[in-house]
């Protein structure tokens, strides 16, 4: 199959050689990654709800059906399990489906297909059938969305062996991580932070169908270097962490920010190296905290860097509530203030963090006082 010239330059045209990379939105970068992947490999197909003529409710697939034709990008019946299961079959027939779930919570009907089939097919067939499927999921909040439109479900996927879970925080990563996801022989849950769709940045300089995509899966990025405390974040929370890091300078804290980029595979090395250096760690994410990805990260850090820690690893996460209404979402979402409050609790100058000590006992948790205090 040949691809028309129009396919190369719909949406975002490639910059003329020698010019500075132009600013694009994250949704534009994803669109460009889809186009470049589709141009590079005719087995790449895009389908889902309203992704064809409309270009998706977030316009991420804008113009792709027009430029690549309805065989390469098409609308499906409105059924998420069906879309995922159809992708399983298409992959078995030799395609590389990139499918869209319209909103995070609307991927839940597909969970059965994802957990029982997408994640397990390689294992169930001794590696004879692998599924190069990318499931794109617009996720998280901060856009004033109504119920069912702002969920963060990464923990479900990260908890499922066989799935890679990826979430970009920058425009450049949106492009490269998606290209890498499409090239990957295994299924990838690609979580797109909705509130970053309109954020601007530049594409990688060599963005093109035949760009050599260096691997960033399992490689966290240090977005900002610091020496006092490590903030670990991903997706929409990286921006919050960066702002908090700037604000923390006012209090004299030098903050390092680690952007995980992929939750699976997880980059223990970069995270642990950073915490060994700083001695303090706060994990920031938007999803509800209980049994969340942050819990996993906190556990891993204390398992691996306990002797470097000057304070407990803290989490700043969403509240353990169903996603709140727009007017209250600021109370739910981790913000700069909450991150700074967490940093303030990190036992600076050997000041114990008293937050969780029993009220009756003094702000001291030495074993001696415990035994004297009896049953606290």
């Amino acid at each position, binding site marked *: 199959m040949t691809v028309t010239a129009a396919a190369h330059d719909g949406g975002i045209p490639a910059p003329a050689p020698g010019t500075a990379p132009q600013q694009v939105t994250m949704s534009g970068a994803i669109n460009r990654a889809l186009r470049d992947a589709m141009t590079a490999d005719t087995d790449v197909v895009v389908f889902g709800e309203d992704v064809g003529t409309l270009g998706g409710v977030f316009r991420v697939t804008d113009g792709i059906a027009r430029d690549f034709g309805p065989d390469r990008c098409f609308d*499906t019946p409105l059924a998420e399990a*069906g879309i995922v299961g*159809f992708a399983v*079959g298409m992959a078995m027939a030799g395609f590389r489906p990139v499918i869209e779930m319209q909103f995070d919570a609307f991927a839940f009907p597909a969970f*059965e297909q994802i957990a029982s089939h997408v994640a397990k097919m390689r294992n169930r067939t*001794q590696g004879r*059938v692998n599924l190069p499927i990318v499931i794109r999921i617009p996720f998280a909040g901060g856009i004033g969305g109504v119920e069912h439109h702002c969920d963060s479900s990464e923990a479900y996927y990260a908890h499922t*062996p066989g799935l890679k879970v990826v979430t970009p925080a920058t425009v450049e990563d949106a492009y490269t991580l998606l290209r890498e996801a499409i090239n990957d022989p295994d299924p990838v849950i690609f979580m797109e932070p909705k509130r970053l769709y309109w954020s601007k940045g530049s594409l990688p300089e060599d963005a093109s169908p035949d760009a050599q995509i260096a691997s960033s899966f399992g490689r966290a990025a240090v977005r900002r270097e610091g020496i006092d405390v490590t903030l670990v974040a991903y997706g929409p929370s990286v921006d919050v962490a960066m702002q908090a890091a700037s604000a923390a300078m006012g209090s004299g804290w030098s903050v390092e920010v680690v952007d995980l980029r992929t939750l699976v595979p997880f980059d223990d090395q970069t995270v642990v190296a950073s915490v060994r250096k700083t001695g303090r760690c706060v994990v920031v994410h938007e999803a509800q905290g209980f049994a969340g990805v942050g819990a996993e990260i906190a556990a891993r850090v204390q398992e691996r860097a306990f002797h470097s820690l000057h304070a407990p690893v803290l989490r700043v996460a969403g509240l353990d509530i169903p996603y709140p209404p727009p007017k209250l979402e600021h109370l739910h979402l981790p913000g700069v203030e909450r991150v700074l409050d967490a940093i303030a609790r990190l036992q600076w100058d050997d000041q114990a963090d008293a937050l969780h000590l029993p009220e009756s006992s003094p702000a001291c948790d030495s074993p001696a006082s415990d035994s004297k205090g009896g049953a606290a």
Partner: protein
Amino acid sequence: MSDRSSGTGVHRAGVFARAPAQAPAGGAHTLEADALTTDTSTPLPQTVPSPPADRPFARGLVPAPMPVQFLDDQGHRVQVFNDDYPEPAAEQLVAAYSAMVVGRRFDVQATALAKQGRLAVYPAARGQEACQVGSMLTLSKDDWAFPTYRDSMALVARGLDPVEVLTSPHGAAHCGYDPRANRTAPQATPLATQLIHAVGFASGEQRQGRPTVAMAFVGDGGTSEGDFHEALNFAAVFNAPVVFLVQNNTYAISTPLTRQTAAPSLGYKGIGYGIASEQVDGNDAMAVLAVLNKAVAHARAGQGPVLVEAHTYRLDAHTNADDATRYRSSAEVEDWIRRDPITRLEAWLRQEGLIDDAFVAATAQKAEAFAADLRARMSVDLVVDPMSLFDNVFGTPTPQLLEQRAMVQAELEAEEASR
């Protein structure tokens, strides 16, 4: 009170004004279905690929009011809504007979292996031979099957190695056979979930320009799952070359059909999706072959998916772990033994002079040899490499999996050393 006496779901056809139960014999299309598919006054924008306006299956979309039959319980040739279906060729019928005899012997042997503890579980298909074998004999070697846990006999009929077919219940974490080499997806246990894979696969093959048909298997209980609906709908919308075979054996474990549906027949479920549908006597191998031959040809010709409900019965319990006496009577089982698919076809083939005593004896011998070989090969404990646990989670294991692998390996080595 058993569900069977509650009366729900018994022949609803005719309750509503235009129920299609009185479809004229001889293949005349039903008015409603035709009206739906031939109204082109307001053409809609075409989706790709577009389903043809005309779906020339037996009766348009509507299944026969009674299961299509060629042979009655005694193996006499009858005319029951079968005008539209050419009688299968003699060679296909003889092949079906042999495969059913071998298939049943395999199935009985597998049940015995489960009772001896050689298999963790075995869902028997004894009694369903006409469906298990008939389905596979209608596929060409490049077609694909998307079977369930119930369809081990079908895979054996397809020519898969029985030891490979039984590898999972024998104790492996995988399906045992190479799906690509055998053109057979792993047997699915989550009900109805693999039907949509068949649809995506068939549509993908069609898009790649290959004439592959996918046959997708489901039980009566599985038709209640949402994935059944989604699969049929996607298949129709994308005009995918899929044949859905519902083996209605009247129970989902203990739950009777009346708790699954109030439809006059499961075959009717295709109509609403725009899928050509049929119901067939699933214990009449000639009828199963005739209907599925046509269904496969229909799908292969690009005329769209077909839904076939085959009325059958599992003579054994749901699995070796199930006690079927808790929900069904021995009289009911006896009644179905009288409709045995093998004796029925054998009677007709003998009548026609297509097989004789010598052939029957030779076939029985072949089946015994098959079972003996299976017994011998299954008497060896399956060797499972502990390290294989980590091999196929991902193409390249994550660092975390490598750590866990090293831990398990060290544990095993320590255990080995302390012996």
